[in-house]
């Protein structure tokens, strides 16, 4: 942020006004070096980011990565050990949860069981002392916008999971918050409804134009809905970027492994050239890959290698135009799952395993165990990350397909 580049002599007040001059006023949330220590461990470790107005920002990470703590700090239920949370130019330090321009959709929605829908949605307005007729009118309006007009008199128990979801959103949106926080609200839904709600959430966000901060461990939710995603691991942001960037240009091994599926190998650099690295994996495959870290990798260095199953070309005959990598394999197992079916193939010479997507073309219809298979991919699709030696020694699995 430009604020950090301000000269020290400028007082904070002018700094803020200058900052808002320089900064277009469309930054809704800025977190600056937030840390949160609990007794004995650091839940959030020096995290900084900004969210522009009207965007859908997701924080994606495995359970226990600190994303919930971060969200609760934004809502005011936890207090950062150090750092600052700035919403619309106002520091939120010392501001009670009920005084923040922030609303939250809770993991289990937290709809009040003692109230009907109308009372639930009107709760925040009543706290603001809004006049009764206006409450009625605003509640009706927001109900209509989420597509549940006329259900104000229903009890919470009478609604379906998806409807409750929308009520929880409406309860927040009726207050026109600067920031809407969502704590894995889709987690409790069944698969079909979840797929449906992903699209609906995204649409509602666009319609209302509210800034959403969404936390989830489900990469698909994050990829489908977000404008920006922060991948979080062990209290730190590994990478912040668009879904496209995270998928195609992961900056760390963790992101590569966490976002999307990958064939994952441990290996050492055999030789390096301008275009690619030659890597010998621990199960004996020789693969050409592209280095992702800025550091130059030299021979003998330990690396981790990621190749997405869907990036691998599969054919039953050897391809004439030879790719950077081509392996002759035999089919070991077919994991049939409709469009998401996978083949686990074994490379003929080394015995190394490679997982690929089973193409649903006529060619592969009668594919069976022990059939021959040729796999090809370019060096650019094999992402190499350097690892310290410790990590490679402790890793007991040499090859695995990681699923985010």
């Amino acid at each position, binding site marked *: 942020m430009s604020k950090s580049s301000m000269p020290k002599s400028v007082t904070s007040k002018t700094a803020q006004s200058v900052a808002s001059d320089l900064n277009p006023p469309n930054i809704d949330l800025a977190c600056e070096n937030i840390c949160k220590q609990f007794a004995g461990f650091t839940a959030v470790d020096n995290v900084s980011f900004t969210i522009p107005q009207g965007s859908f920002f997701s924080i994606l990470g495995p359970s226990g990565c600190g994303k919930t703590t971060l969200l609760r700090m934004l809502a005011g239920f936890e207090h950062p050990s150090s750092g600052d949370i700035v919403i619309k130019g106002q520091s939120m330090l*010392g*501001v009670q949860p009920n005084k923040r321009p922030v609303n939250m959709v809770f993991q289990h929605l937290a709809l009040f069981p003692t109230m009907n829908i109308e009372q639930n949605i009107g709760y925040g307005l009543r706290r603001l002392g809004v006049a009764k007729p206006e409450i009625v009118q605003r509640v009706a309006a927001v109900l209509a916008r989420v597509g549940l007009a006329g259900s104000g008199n229903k009890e919470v128990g009478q609604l379906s999971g998806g409807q409750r979801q929308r009520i929880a959103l409406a309860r927040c949106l009726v207050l026109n918050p600067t920031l809407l926080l969502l704590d894995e609200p889709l987690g409790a839904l069944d698969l079909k409804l979840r797929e449906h709600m992903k699209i609906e959430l995204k649409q509602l966000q666009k319609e209302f134009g509210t800034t959403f901060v969404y936390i989830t461990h489900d990469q698909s939710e994050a990829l489908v809905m977000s404008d920006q995603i922060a991948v979080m691991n062990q209290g730190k942001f590994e990478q912040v970027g668009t879904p496209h960037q995270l998928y195609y240009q992961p900056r760390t091994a963790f992101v590569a492994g966490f976002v999307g599926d990958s064939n994952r190998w441990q290996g050492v650099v055999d030789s390096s050239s301008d275009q690619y690295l030659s890597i010998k994996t621990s199960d004996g495959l020789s693969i050409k890959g592209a280095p992702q870290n800025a550091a130059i990798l030299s021979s003998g260095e330990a690396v981790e290698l990621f190749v997405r199953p869907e990036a691998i070309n599969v054919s039953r005959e050897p391809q004439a135009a030879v790719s950077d990598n081509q392996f002759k394999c035999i089919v070991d197992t077919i994991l049939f799952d409709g469009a998401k079916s996978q083949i686990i193939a074994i490379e003929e010479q080394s015995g190394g395993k490679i997982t690929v997507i089973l193409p649903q073309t006529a060619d592969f219809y009668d594919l069976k165990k022990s059939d021959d298979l040729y796999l090809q991919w370019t060096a650019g699709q094999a992402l190499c990350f350097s690892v310290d030696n410790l990590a490679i020694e402790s890793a007991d699995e040499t090859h695995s397909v990681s699923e985010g």
Partner: protein
Amino acid sequence: MSAVTVAKKIRLGLWLLLAPLFLWLVLLIILPHFELLAFSLIDPEDQGFTFEFYLEFFQEPLYWRTFLRTAVMSILATILTLVIAFPVAFYIAKMLRGRSKGIVFAMCLIPFWVSELVRTFGWMILLRESGVISNFLQWSGLASGPVELLYTDATIMLGLVYTSMLFMVVPLVSTLDSLDDSYIEAGYDLGGSNWDVMREIIIPHAVPGIVSGCIIVFMLSLGNYLTPVLLGGKDSLWFTEQIYTQFITRFNWEQGSAFGLLLLLLSSLIVWAGLKATGQSFTKTMG
């Protein structure tokens, strides 16, 4: 800084909530019992320390015999109540479903919403010489003259069991309810007989309920006053009556205090022994 104010508010809330609890427990439970202890150990004449009121208890056979009798009959009443209540609780918890379960359970409970005095009065009408059962026996020819069924130890026992039944049924039903049917089915499936399943699956699971039911029934029997006085008549000897006599009739508060503490000591000992023997904790069984 905000964390500090929050912590301060929390501490203030804690003290505000602790105050009524403290006042209640200290003023109404703890200090009164210490006062009782002081009364029982201090000679009212010269304000000196004395054991005479405890010695009096051991020297007067009427007192310690009543004490023992009260304890033994209370234990007996507890066992009887358990034996009678268990099949009923089992039926409600395991054999009945849905609506009929609720109704039968409520039928068990409703009599106990009525005052103990009314229930005891009912037994008096049933059992006395001119009572319903005596009349029935004469009418049916089983007895030639009026039969007096009141004023025996068996009558007291009947009254005690009746009075405490609810407090055994409720904890038993709730623990048995929490036993999943599949455990019982597995017990049979693996070759167990009725008796095996009862002994190795159902009863071990029901122990917490049995213990808490027994504790409450025992305490209620031990501390009962109405039943022994009304059903047991003039010669019935119950330790609470002795306490009442010392306090209210004879106005001998020192002796009464000693009796009270002995009763408390006895009940604590037996409850403690019961908990130890079954490996249960007081807080879990009561709370």
